[in-house]
Each structure stands twice: as C-alpha cells, then as structure tokens.
C-alpha cells in the first residue's frame, strides 16, 4: 500500500511522454477532484496514467470511478460536477457517439467539464486512427472544442480550458482533441509545470458552495433539470448558452495571453494561430496534428519563393469568424483542410463549411477550396502537403481547378481505384 501524499507535488520538469500522458499530467496539474473513465482505443493510456497517479497517492482526495460505459462516464462526471467538483475524463470516437445524450446534458446544465479526446474515425468499418469527425460531429451540443497540434499543446490546452470553462461568465464544457495514435501514442518532450505556478494560473477549486448556478447541498435544497413548459424559459436558457459562446471568444484570447505571460508559450490569439501569413497569395486553414507538418511544407515552399502561409485553427467552437474574415483579407485563395467528413454538405468537410459560412455576405473575395485528407488515420505525407499547396498556387494563378476535385472538394490521397 502506497502512502498518500498530503498534497499534489510537481516540480517543473521536461519529460518525454506520450500525448495521452500529457493529458493525464494536465488533469493532475489541474488538481481534478473526480475522474470517471471507460477505456477506449486510442484514449486508454490517459486513464491508465491517471490510475497510476491515484493509486500511488499522487492525487490525494481525488475520486476515480471506473464505470462500465461512456454513457455512464458522462453521467457520472455530470453528477460529480453538479455537486461542485472539478471533473475530468477522456474518450474517443465511438465513446463520444455513445455518450452523445449526456454530452448535450452537460452543456444544458452549464457544467464546466473538460474532456480529452484522442480522436478516431467512426465505424463501420472499424477504425481507431486519427479522424476528427468524432468531435466535430458534436458541433451543436453546446460544447467548446479545441484542437492540439503538439504534445505540449495537449497539456497546455487542458489547463487553459479549465480556466475558460470555469469562468462564471462562461460555465460551459469543453473537448480538447488530438489525433489518435499520431499524438496519443507517440512520445515527445513535454514541460510539466510547477504545481504552484499552475495553481496561480488556474481558478481555485470550486468553493464549498460549488458553482454559482447549480449545487447538490442539503443545506440549500434545490431541484435542477425540471420539465419546463414551452411557454416558460426553455428558449431563454438556450439563448444564454449561445450568448456564452459569443462572450467566450474574448475570454479565450485573454486566457491565452495570460498563459503566455506565465508559462512563455504562445498559441496565437487562442482561437487561431497564424504562420507566415504576411505577404501571401494563398493560405491554408488546418487543424490538429497535420498543422505541425504543414508548417514545414510552408517553410519549404517559401524557400522556393512561393507566397504561402497557414492558419492553425485552435477552436472549432467557438468558431473564430472574425479572425477567419481577417485571414481572408490577406489572400486570394484559402484551402481548408479537414481530417473529417460532413456527409451531404455542399461545402466539403465540417470546418470548410464553417469557413464558407463565415465569409458569406462579407466583401472578401478570397475563394475557398475545401480539402479532405487523412481520414481514419490515412497517412498525409510532407510531400503530399507540399503538393496541396502547389495545387492551390496553380489554381490561384491559372484558375484551373485541381483535377482531383470531386463535388467541389479536393479529396486528397485517394487510392487508385476504378
């Protein structure tokens, strides 16, 4: 039996860990009080690492519930969050779909739950590799969603998310997504921050009273989640969620700035992070792990004299409409690269839909070319990304639509089939 520590202990250190472990370290740094989890590939090592922390007494007071399904994962973190505790879980693909009902519930109850997502492709056919359709398909649930491009960003974004979600003006849940296996199972150096410094950055854990709007306390008996008649405040409660999504953009920007000031790592304005977007003809909007490799593709083409740049999309919800409009002002053509599908859409993948919507009814004339690639973990090589940029350059110069375009979208990296 390992003796429990009296308090959380963490000195600033750089360790080589998997992306999933970075998520687990972030939960520990955030002193989460209740964890509930169910294993799913490729999320498993998050919950394994957390078990290790809890079993070794490194997270004193933290309750870890190992439930029997993702539906119960979200139900139990909702129960725990309602009672006024900081909660955490992690899941993936099918787990998100199974818990979809409770995902709506968490947002409707305005619970600041943070969930790490090692994204994977929806079945069938079975797929466990990187694909953001899982998180993006939760678009209308009232959850914020962020993408990470690096191992460090997983750790950092989870910390920033608690600060944003628990703000009393916001009180919304959030997904922090990163590509399954590509980030979840590869190892990189990650800086784990000093506990005192993290404590000074994050809001303190919920007070004894819990959240301002919801509590489970016999001293203040109250009922939550009643049936509400159409003539009552249902519509107004929904509008309040929408309003919070408008407010949260500024909050994210502020928290990102504070984070940079304290920890020294820059994530653009929090919503988007531009890369070499000055003096450009064409740019791409890209998110998740593919963004990291795209930086190199941009560098190489810049070296060859092409005026290309990229924008890393860090948040899908809230969607940075204003930033996208500004980006569109700088270029004549924008490629939007989705590692996800939005079947039946006229406008490519889930993010290109949003980009087109953002630019609709503006005076900006930048064309948008949706690109879908890397579905279900299909490898996207550096060479391929350079070719995507080159195709955009050619399209911009000659007006010649790339030959692989299908229904207006470039499905890149298809196998040669009849």
């Amino acid at each position, binding site marked *: 039996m390992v003796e429990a520590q009296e308090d959380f202990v963490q000195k600033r250190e750089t360790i080589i860990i998997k992306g999933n472990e970075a998520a687990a370290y972030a939960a520990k740094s955030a002193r989460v*009080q*209740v964890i*509930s989890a169910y294993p799913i590939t490729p999320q498993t090592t998050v919950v394994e690492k957390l078990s290790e922390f809890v079993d070794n007494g490194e997270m*004193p*007071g*933290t*309750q870890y*519930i*190992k*439930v*029997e*399904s993702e*539906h*119960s*994962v*979200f*139900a*139990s*973190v*909702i*129960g*725990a*969050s*309602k*009672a*006024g*505790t900081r*909660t955490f879980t992690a899941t993936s693909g099918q787990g998100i779909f199974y818990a979809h*009902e*409770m995902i709506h*519930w968490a947002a409707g109850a305005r619970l600041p739950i943070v969930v790490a997502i090692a994204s994977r492709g929806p079945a069938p056919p079975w797929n466990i590799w990187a694909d953001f359709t899982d998180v993006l398909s939760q678009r209308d649930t009232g959850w914020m969603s962020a993408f990470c491009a690096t191992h460090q960003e997983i750790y950092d974004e989870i910390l920033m998310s608690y600060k944003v979600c628990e703000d009393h003006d916001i009180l919304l849940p959030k997904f922090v997504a990163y590509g399954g296996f590509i980030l979840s199972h590869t190892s990189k150096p990650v800086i784990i921050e000093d506990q005192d410094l993290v404590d000074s950055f994050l809001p303190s*854990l919920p007070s*004894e009273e819990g959240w301002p709007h919801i*509590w*489970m*306390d*016999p001293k*203040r*008996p*109250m*009922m*939550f*989640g*009643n*049936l*509400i*008649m159409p003539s*009552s*405040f249902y519509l107004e409660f929904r509008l309040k969620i929408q309003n919070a999504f408008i407010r949260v953009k500024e909050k994210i920007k502020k928290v990102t700035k504070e984070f940079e000031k304290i920890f020294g790592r820059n994530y653009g304005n929090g919503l988007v992070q531009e890369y070499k977007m000055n003096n450009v003809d064409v740019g791409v909007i890209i998110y998740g792990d593919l963004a990291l490799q795209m930086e190199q593709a941009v560098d190489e083409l810049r070296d060859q004299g092409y005026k290309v740049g990229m924008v890393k999309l860090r948040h899908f919800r809230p969607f940075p409409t204003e930033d996208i409009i500004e980006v569109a002002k700088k270029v004549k053509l924008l490629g939007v690269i989705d590692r996800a599908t939005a079947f039946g859409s006229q406008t490519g993948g889930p993010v290109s839909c949003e980009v087109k919507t953002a630019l609709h009814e503006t005076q900006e004339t930048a064309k948008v070319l949706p690109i879908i690639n890397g579905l279900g973990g299909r490898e996207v090589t550096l060479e391929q990304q350079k070719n995507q940029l080159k195709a955009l350059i050619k399209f911009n110069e000659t007006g010649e639509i790339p030959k692989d375009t299908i229904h207006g979208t470039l499905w890149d990296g298809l196998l040669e089939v009849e």
Partner: protein
Amino acid sequence: MDYWRLNKRMVKLKEALESCQEEYFLPGNSCCAGCGLELALRWAIKALGPNTALVTPASCLNVVVGLWPKTAPNFPFTNMAFAAGAAAATGMSAAFKAKAYRFPGKGWDEITAITFAGDGGTADIGIQGLSGAAERNSDQIYVCYDNEAYMNTGIQRSSSTPHGAWTSTTTKGKDRFKKNLPAIMTAHDIPYVATCSISEPLDLYNKFKKAKSINGCKYIHILAPCPPGWGLESSESIEIARLAVKTGSWILYEVENGIMNLSKASRSLLDTSKRAPLIDYLSRQKRFANISEKDLIELQEYLDHTWKRLEADLLCQDQYPK
C-alpha cells in the same frame, strides 16, 4: 395476533409516525390521486431524512415533482437522462467524498446519495448503469419504484410488466413474465437488497433506515401501483398493493450480505394455505380484465413455482456454515 404483539407493533408504528412528522415531498405536487410513487418517495425520504441527495432518471417522477420553477421535494433533487440514474448518483457520491476531503468535518460524507427510478429506468434502459454501479459497490441507495409499465409515456409494457397484463403495447396481454430485478441485484453480491410495498409503510421505513446505515450499494424495489395504468380507483392503490403481498404475487424480503430473510407480511405465506387466492388480486385490476384462462393458469403456476424455488433457497441457505 396476541394482544402483546399487537401492542408492540402499535408502539413501533406510533414511534415511526411521531419521528417523521416532517414532510420532505411536499403537498401540491402533481401526482395522480392514489399514486403509488408518491407514497413510496414520501416514506423513503421520511426514513432517510433531509440529508439526502436524489437523482431521478426519466420517469413519472421527473414530471410530478413540479414543472419549472415549481419544486415539490424539500431536499436536493436532480433530474437525469433515462439510462443515467445510477451513474449520476455514483458521480454525486464521489463528489461528496472529494468535498469531504477538501472540507473535512462539514458532513459532506454523511449525505446519502440515492437514485429513484421507475421500472423502465431500472429493468430496461437503466440496467447497464445499475449493474455497473452495483458491481463497483457504488455508495448509494438505488430505488426502483415499480408500477410495472411505462406509465409516464402512456402505459407501454416494460420488462417488469407481469404476464397477462394489458398495456398499450401488449393489447392481448403480455406474453413474457416479469423480470426478477431484485434477484438480479442479489446476484451482484451487494450488501443490501430489499423489496417493499407501499401497503407496508413501516416495513418500507425500516428497510430504508437500515439501507442508510450500510456502506456501499443498496437496492430497494418498491411495488407502487398506478391507478390509471392498472385500472384502479384512486382509493384502491394501497389495498391492491396489500393484495399483491397477501396473494404472494409480490414477496417482501431482505437480503443482507447474501442472507435472505422473508419480511413479516410474506413470511407466513410459505404455507400455501395462508396465501389469498391470486384471482382476488387480479380481478380488481382492469389491466387483467381480459386475461385468458391460459395466462391465468400460467400466472398461478409461475407464482407457485416462485414460492417453491424460494422455499428451496431458504432451506439451502439454512445449510450454510454459520
């Protein structure tokens, strides 16, 4: 019953009534007249006291407690999705433990977490979450108030609907038999399983008191007749619940750490001759009005078989090394 025993019982009843004058499920709620659920919840919370936090998944209870912003329960109460009762209470109970760690001596670990679900939310859509909570020995009391169909949505059959009963989705009577949830929960080896009937409030009161004193996962299954769903006058629900017990259709017992004990109202019924005729129970309910002779015979056989098996179990249990 001799005078001394009767007197003792009356004293206990008097004590119970005096000790729980306080109401926690307040008048003005929108239960139907004669609602079994209302009595079940009222007596359960009287036994547990107000230091109780309740989760209810989708069921009549979501509605009868009051449309927003009206609130009938005078204790912490949260509504939940249909399949999510047991897991939400697990999370709540874990949060109380986490809060007890952070705010010691403030009584956070003394709050009783309770799930209060209907038979659909327990035996059908909620069984996975319940089984998970039981296997983890989640510290909560899980209560199933059993009105033997989906009454909230308009009397559709559930796996807890008895054989032969009319529901809006078994218009010729249900072909299958009632799922034995208390037995399934007993098989989870949780510290406490009990069955109750709204016709035996003192028995119910005592069982909840006992459940509160035990750590871990407790399961209590309450037969709670539904006047519109069963086709009863609102004045009849308690009488019908009592008949369910007297005929042996609903057996009252406790299983404490694996050892079963028949409760008083059911104990004498091991003697077949002490059981009221089944037809006395069925004939009072419109849902059995058109029951076929075949179904009637099968129900009687099922009842006899259930008791025989129970008797064998109890005999077998006596042979356990003490």
